[in-house]
Structures are given as C-alpha cells and as structure tokens.
C-alpha cells in the first residue's frame, strides 16, 4: 500500500462504510418483511375468535321463532290466535337460554318488545364473557 496516496485510502474507507450502512438497511427491511406474516396470522385468529357463528346461529333461530310463534308478553295485544301456542314459544326460548349456558358458556336471552299485525320487534342479547352483542331487530310479516 506504499504507492497509494492518502486521498485514495480515504475513498476506500468511504466505500466500505457505505456498504456497511446499506447492508444494515437491507437487514431492517428483512425484519419488517418477517413481521408481515405474523400480522396476517394474528389478525385471522382475532377474526375467528369472535363468536360470529354462535351469534349468527342464535340470531337465526330467535328471528325464526319470533316470526313463526306466538308472543308470550305483549301488553297491548290479545293472546295470539296462532295455534302454535304461547307455551311452546316460552319453552323454546328457555331451551335456547339453557343450551347456550350449558354448552356454549354464553348468556343469551331475547325479549319481544312490540307486537303488531304487520311486524314484531325483538331485542337479542348475547354475552360469552368476552364479547357482548345486542341487537334490536324488526321482523316483518
């Protein structure tokens, strides 16, 4: 290295240093890329941890019962002429509550708020200790 001038030695140092900085930059980018897979995984887990299927199931069944069976408590109306009786609906509501509690560890109940000739109004409550879901639904005849 005797023949190299002082200036050329300094340029060599610059090149080495810049190469080093660029390599650290690439390493950082690799770390970010690595994180992206985990982000997708945890998001998917979070989505499925939400009891979507349970809520949809309860909701479908409650709306079906509300539409097709007599209402057990409506202060404004006379008892339903529907032959599919009042008591049946009450016991079926108890079925849903008890089965949810015993098998799904979820508190479920629903109240039919309003009963008219053209529509019924129902409040659905679902709570499994982590997620709470309340819905006010209107069922049209």
């Amino acid at each position, binding site marked *: 290295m005797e023949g190299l001038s002082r200036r050329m030695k300094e340029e060599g140092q610059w090149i080495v240093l810049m190469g080093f900085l660029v390599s650290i930059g690439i390493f950082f980018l690799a770390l970010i890329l690595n994180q992206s897979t985990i982000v997708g995984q945890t998001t998917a887990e979070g989505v499925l941890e939400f009891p979507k299927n349970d809520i949809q199931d309860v909701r479908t069944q409650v709306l079906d019962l509300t539409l097709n069976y007599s209402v057990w408590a409506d202060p404004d109306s006379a008892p339903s002429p529907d032959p599919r009786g009042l008591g049946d609906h009450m016991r*079926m509501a108890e*079925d849903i509550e008890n*089965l949810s509690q015993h*098998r799904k560890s979820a508190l479920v109940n629903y109240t039919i708020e309003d009963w008219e000739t053209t529509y019924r109004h129902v409040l659905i409550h679902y709570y499994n200790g982590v997620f709470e879901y309340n819905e006010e639904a209107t069922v049209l005849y």
Partner: protein
Amino acid sequence: MVNTSGQLYTMEGIAAGLIMILTAYLVLGATSVYTPGDTHITDMQLEQVGSDILKIMDTPGDLTHPSELEQIVAANDGTRFEQLFWTTYLMSGEIAAQKTTRAGSSIIANATVYYHYTDRTDPANPVAMVKGYQLRAPIIPFTGSQPGVRVTRFVKYNGWGSGIRPSGIPPDMENRPQVVLVEVFLWKA
C-alpha cells in the same frame, strides 16, 4: 483535509448507533418467540368449514319443508347425517381442496344432540337440565391427544307427537316442540 475526516467520523457514529439499536431490538424481541405451534390456522379452517356445513344442512330447500338437519334430528338418523355431512359436503370437491373419500381423509367427527328438559323429581323445586345423546359415533374413538374443534347449530325439533318415542331418544327428553343443539366435534386423527 479536516472536512473529509470529520464526515467520516460522523458516518461511523451513525453506523455504530444503528448497530446498537439493532442489537437492542433483537434482544428485546427474543423474549417472545412466535412458533407455528402457537397458531391454530388448521383448526380455524376446520371450524369454519364445519359451521358452514351445518348451516347448509339447516337451510331448507323450500319454505314448505323442514331443513335436512331438522329431518335428521326428527328421525334420529345418524346414517343420513354421516352421508350428508361427509359425502355430500365435506368430501365434495367444492369444499375440500380435492375430492376424497372418508377413509382417505384424516378428519373424524362425532355428532351429539343436546336437549334441555326440566327435572321434576322434586315437584317443589324443578331443575333445568341439559343432556345429550349421540347422533353419530366417530369411526375412530377420540384419544384426547389431537386438537379438536366444536361446531354447533340450534335445530327445531317438534317432538314425536302422539306416536311412539323413536329409538335412541332418551326417556327424559320431553315430547314437545323444542330447540335442540346439534354439536359436531371435529378433529384430525
């Protein structure tokens, strides 16, 4: 050349700083290791597929007939359940990645029907009870070592009316219109 060497020292300082930050990041990140064993991707997929199949089975073809799942529960027909759940839906090319047979698949299912009744042995103190009976047994018994998922569906059951109690229906199940819970336990053997 005071200027040039000063620039060089600055760049060296920056490089050293980056190395220190990187080291600190790696050291802190090493405490939480996220392994593939922590994820339940396959379980989640199984859960979604199972729920979807039960939903399909509980959807009536038209408004005048009960759904297939309601008919299966009413007849306590485990064979038909197996045929629909497996052959028609789970093993179809539309749902599984590849059309396959039950023997070729390692997914095992156990179907149970849970019902609610009131225990009136003490008439003054009725107790709400939930019990279940098996709708379809798994082809291989569950050993407990495999991770499994549970999918459920509420199904309407009208009872057996004035007829005789169907075979397989437990004696404490009440004969009335009711809602039962069909629970399918799925796992990979």
